[in-house]
């Protein structure tokens, strides 16, 4: 019940974006990224924030903890036409979460 309530609350994209930015800012705080701007929807995880595959795994954990939902089908986000995406933007994750968190609440 609590988990569903949490995801309902987080369902609008503004809240999802805020939550994701908070996770990312916290995560990369001490990394040597050379990225000086503010993280926003257009920020690229791999190109701007130096994400590697293990960092994606850890990000997924953080997202699932934050939004109170586990087992989200992240491969839908990370695969394109049978190939791994070599880049991922913040806005793509937000769109994915919007869709997935919403579908979860009606399940």
């Amino acid at each position, binding site marked *: 019940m609590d988990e569903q309530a949490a995801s309902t609350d987080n369902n609008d994209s503004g809240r999802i974006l805020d939550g994701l930015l908070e996770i990312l800012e916290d995560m990369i705080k001490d*990394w040597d990224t050379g990225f000086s701007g503010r993280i926003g929807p257009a920020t690229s995880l791999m190109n701007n924030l130096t994400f590697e*595959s293990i960092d994606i*795994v850890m990000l*997924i954990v953080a997202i699932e903890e934050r939004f109170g939902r*586990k087992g989200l089908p992240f491969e839908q986000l990370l695969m394109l*036409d049978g190939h791994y995406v070599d880049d991922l933007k913040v806005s793509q994750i937000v769109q994915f979460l919007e869709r997935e968190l919403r*579908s979860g609440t009606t399940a």
Partner: protein
Amino acid sequence: MSRTLLLGLDGATFTVLDALMEQGLMPTLRRLCEAGVRAGLQSTVTPLTPLAWTSLLTGRSPGHHGIFDFVRVEQLAYHPHFRLATSSDIRCPTIYSLIGERGLRSLSLNFPVMFPPQPINGFMIPGFVPHRHLKRAMHPRSLYDRLSAIPEVSLKELPVDFEDERRSVQVLAPERHEEWIRFHIRRERQWSNVLHHLMTTEPWDLASVVFDGVDKLQHACWRFIDDGLFATFGASPWARSVRELCLDYFRQLDELIARAVELAGPETRVFLASDHGFGPSDEIFYVNTWLAQQGHLAWKDDAPVAPEGYINTEGMKAAAFLFDWSRTRAYTLTPGSNGIYLRTGGAAGRAQLARQIVVRRVMTREEAFPGPHSHLAADLTLVLRDFGFVSVTRSEAIVRTRRDVAGVHNPRGIFIAAGPGIRRGETVNDLSILDVTPALMHSLGEPVPQEFDGRLPVEIFEPAHAVRPAAAVPARRIHAPDEVPAEAAAMAAEGEATVMQRLRALGYLE
């Protein structure tokens, strides 16, 4: 009650340690055995790091605590996929929270599945966390900056590099052995330095750490460590130098054990335990190849075939990427769990397939992992002849001889206890890993929760210390079984491979 020190030696076996003690390379371990009690320690049904340490920390079997692998397999309607198992997947309280609620303080270093860190009464640094995420992984977070300021601590050396780890579990190139062993010697010293710092600056009742280089070295270097095996091939100077380094690892590990025991002082009870043991393996069972031959699984046409003698193909895609899901009814995703999942068939299907499999033992999930969360486990769990792990790769034969004899996990690990109220110089019958938690609770002067699955091993204690009725402590954090999202979005069958591809970096996925 006594302060209690738990030193975890990941994958330790008396097969190796007894030889080292006899050769005088591990004098502290020998002294602890002579001054205390020793026993073989039977691991969880699958002798795999995440389940076994979680059992030791919760006193519960996997069917109750809900951890079955490094990853959690999610059975979505359209395909299986998996993600990292985390601390919030553990469905029972750990000993840290049980005693924390009673006001006792813990130090917990390098235990798996503890990420994200739980707000225990004390300090925690989970294991298996990459360096860039270490700060977020510490409880409390301020511990990171505090440790950064200590000259003897190099936080960069605490974690393993996951890509290195993956390679070492498979085949370690000859020229990389020395660097790999030296890295683990330095790494154990780092954990020891952190332990030392916290034990000397913080109040604690239970101090615990896992030294996991034992497991890492035995995986990559078993044939150099095992006396008999080494005698059969170890003539070259290179082989002798690798063996020397391995022995040096254990010699230095013994020093770190001595350092912790000394620091803890004579009033502290010391427990050494492994999560599982280790032993040799010279064969490979290609489980998915067998399932394919039986008509339960179909490979995609382009699925690569393992070179003879190898558990894997170099640069291979994750197993699920290689299956034709439209014609696959049973499959194994990860080697560590030795688990076969059925897509249909339920209990009857499990029982039917179990009868066909030619290995030491096949257990349905009801047998292997009884408990409220057994539905999260693989349908069938295999126990192989050599207790090793299956290969999930495509192969031309079902069973092959390995190129080199490898070290693989074994259910029989180690248990040693010493200190006030512990019997001296005794060897007792094998204990279960589930008996360690009651022993720790008892040592800390706490009642043993009734729902624990093990028993208090009274035989390790002097009679006056042994008997205390267990009081009921209610279980907490018991969640309803997860609901499986009902959506059935159509998607490319390749999809499930992606997260696995990412998770392969974790080292235990083929």
